[in-house]
């Protein structure tokens, strides 16, 4: 045995030698195990999302939408005469995993384009990798304006925070004639924080007053403390920009505490779960969304029917719609590009104009954001009814 208290130079060296050897061998083994080259007779598109972890419910919804679009595309004969394949990677709702996932898609699966992520944080983490490798990335639902600023290969299929936040503020002040608002924000969620910020700014500009600002965290189920505080300030409406996972419960507890003013929300409310969990408590809520079931556009009806068929009668939420639209936009871009080369798909995506998506007619603007009109819905006896439409 080495001498315990004398300097152990030789042994230190051997540790490093061994470890270095180990570190070299492991990746090689990996390479053999997972290394798979894409076949040339198919077009591979990558998808990364949160299939597990804190926001798994959004990731799986998006995934269902993407798969539905994929099947429709392949049923039509694929793209450029080739079958389309989607490789999906889970990022466990963690930013650094999103980086791994995207790199794997690009380097191992040789994808021609990437769809993802719902959460802006993960999109922001992954975007530089797509940009560096000149692979177009289309985010279905990352609303933070910064996402597409990562580079000219990064696009999105959804609204950005300023648009939704200020639209709701204008609607509440101008159409509903309300003057006193409370805001209940999910501080762990940048979408919620973003919407709240622009709602606040616009509402104040229009002369309304924010009488209370409270917050909660993703995953909470107890909001009575915040709601009781809000109630004492007697607002005329409460803006709750968040996801249906919490919003429906907020509505319920608000009613239980006797806070009966209307709630206002964003597209995070769009889910059958909102009415299922919220019950009668969500009636009277106004929220902004991409489309309305009552619009009678053929895309909408077809999408919802097929979705129900494929997913055991489940009604799609906003995430599923955006996942579907993203895949369809990407397919459209690839067809127009006539090629699977990154730069050409990018140019085609950037040139997307008046694309008839389920979530509206989409035009990609110079900032690579989707321009589409917004609709305001009201929940009435458990149904989402159309109130008005606002052009971008």
């Amino acid at each position: 045995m080495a001498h315990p208290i004398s300097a152990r130079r030789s042994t230190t060296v051997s540790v490093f030698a061994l470890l270095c050897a180990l570190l070299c061998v492991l990746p090689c083994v990996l390479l053999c195990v997972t290394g798979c080259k894409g076949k040339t007779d198919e077009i591979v598109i990558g998808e990364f999302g949160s299939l597990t972890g804190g926001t798994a419910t959004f990731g799986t919804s998006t995934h269902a939408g993407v798969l539905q679009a994929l099947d429709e595309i392949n049923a039509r004969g694929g793209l450029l005469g080739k079958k389309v394949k989607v490789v999906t990677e889970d990022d466990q709702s963690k930013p650094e995993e999103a980086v791994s996932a995207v790199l794997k898609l690009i380097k191992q699966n040789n994808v021609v384009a990437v769809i993802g992520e719902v959460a802006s944080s993960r999109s922001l983490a992954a975007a530089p990798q797509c940009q560096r490798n000149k692979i177009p990335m289309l985010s279905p639902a990352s609303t933070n304006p910064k996402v597409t600023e990562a580079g000219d290969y990064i696009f999105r299929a959804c609204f950005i925070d300023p648009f939704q936040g200020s639209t709701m503020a204008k609607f509440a002040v101008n159409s509903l004639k309300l003057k006193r608002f409370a805001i209940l924000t999910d501080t762990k969620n940048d979408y919620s924080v973003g919407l709240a910020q622009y709602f606040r700014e616009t509402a104040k500009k229009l002369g309304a007053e924010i009488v209370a600002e409270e917050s909660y965290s993703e995953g909470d189920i107890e909001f009575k403390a915040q709601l009781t505080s809000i109630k004492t300030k007697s607002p005329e409406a409460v803006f709750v920009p968040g996801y249906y996972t919490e919003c429906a419960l907020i509505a319920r507890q608000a009613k239980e505490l006797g806070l009966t003013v209307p709630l206002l929300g964003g597209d995070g409310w769009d889910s059958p779960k909102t009415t299922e969990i919220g019950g009668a408590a969500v009636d009277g809520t106004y929220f902004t969304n991409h489309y309305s079931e009552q619009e009678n556009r053929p895309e909408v009806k077809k999408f919802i029917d097929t979705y129900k068929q494929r997913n055991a009668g489940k009604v799609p939420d906003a995430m599923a719609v955006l996942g579907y639209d993203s895949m369809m936009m990407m397919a459209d871009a690839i067809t127009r590009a006539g090629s699977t080369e990154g730069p050409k798909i990018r140019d085609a995506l950037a040139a997307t104009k008046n694309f008839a998506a389920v979530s509206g007619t989409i035009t990609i603007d110079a900032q690579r954001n989707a321009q589409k009109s917004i609709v305001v819905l009201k929940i009435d006896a458990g149904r989402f009814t159309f109130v008005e439409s606002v052009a971008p």
Partner: protein
Amino acid sequence: MELLKRNAVPLLLVAAQWPVGWLLSQTVNSYYLQIIVYIGINAMLAVSLNLINGITGQFSLGHAGFMAVGAYVSAACSLFLVNGWPAALALPAILLAGGLAAALAGLVVGLPTLRLRGDYLAITTLGFGEIIRVVILNTAAVGGARGLGGMPPLSDFASVYACTIVCVLVIWRLVHSPLGKAFTAVREDEIAAAAMGIDTTRYKITAFVLGAFWAGVAGALFAHFIGYIHTNSFTFLKSVEVVVMVVLGGMGSISGAIIAAAVLTVLTEALRFLADYRMIIYSVLLIVMMLTRPGGLLGRHEITQWRFWSSRTAR
């Protein structure tokens, strides 16, 4: 001169990371390179936590908190302070900033809490990690819930591995020096150690601060490798992940911690093909590994000890 000669091997090893890094970047695709870099960062986290949990016998569950401090401070530093400096200057600056900030946090947390024992210490360190996260989430200057991005890609394979080697070397030499053996003595029997004239609190705090320092450096490297940080990367689960590495490697075994970091990092990637079954299998494997080798992969031994190679009795 004499110093150089005596430390030629480690110095060469550190220096060799740059040509090796260049070589790797030419031959290995960036996906593998990224996994290799993650291994380095995780190894640094595991080894530094091992100093606290394995060698000194304390129980910290807040390593992700220190990592977060390092990541955010260094990121803020490179965005607002050393913006525009040449990389050769900016890199050491941000690493030092991240490390020192985390070390300071370690001192602040350690001073009052280290008199708590075992699980009480664990829960307060866990609490500290969560407090850090809540504070960051509510600090608009560092992005809050939107995360912080735009850091220059200062860290790469070479800088990560150079730092990992230095970290391992410092901790190895410390705990294997006559003076440093007191760390292990504190773990083995605190009362006896005190009776031998060892200021146990001071050793515990030293371990805490030094461990936090390297976690901060790891955080800084992480932030500048990914280029975007968000509090979701530094949850209590990240702390748990590092604790798992330490225990799986064998409490107190530095080489064990490195091996466990590598194994677990590669394992999560290798299981990718399982998609949403991945973490289920991962957790089952974790339980099985622990049941079959309860003392960790190397037990308390180092891979360099012949006992490990020659007899299977070592656990």
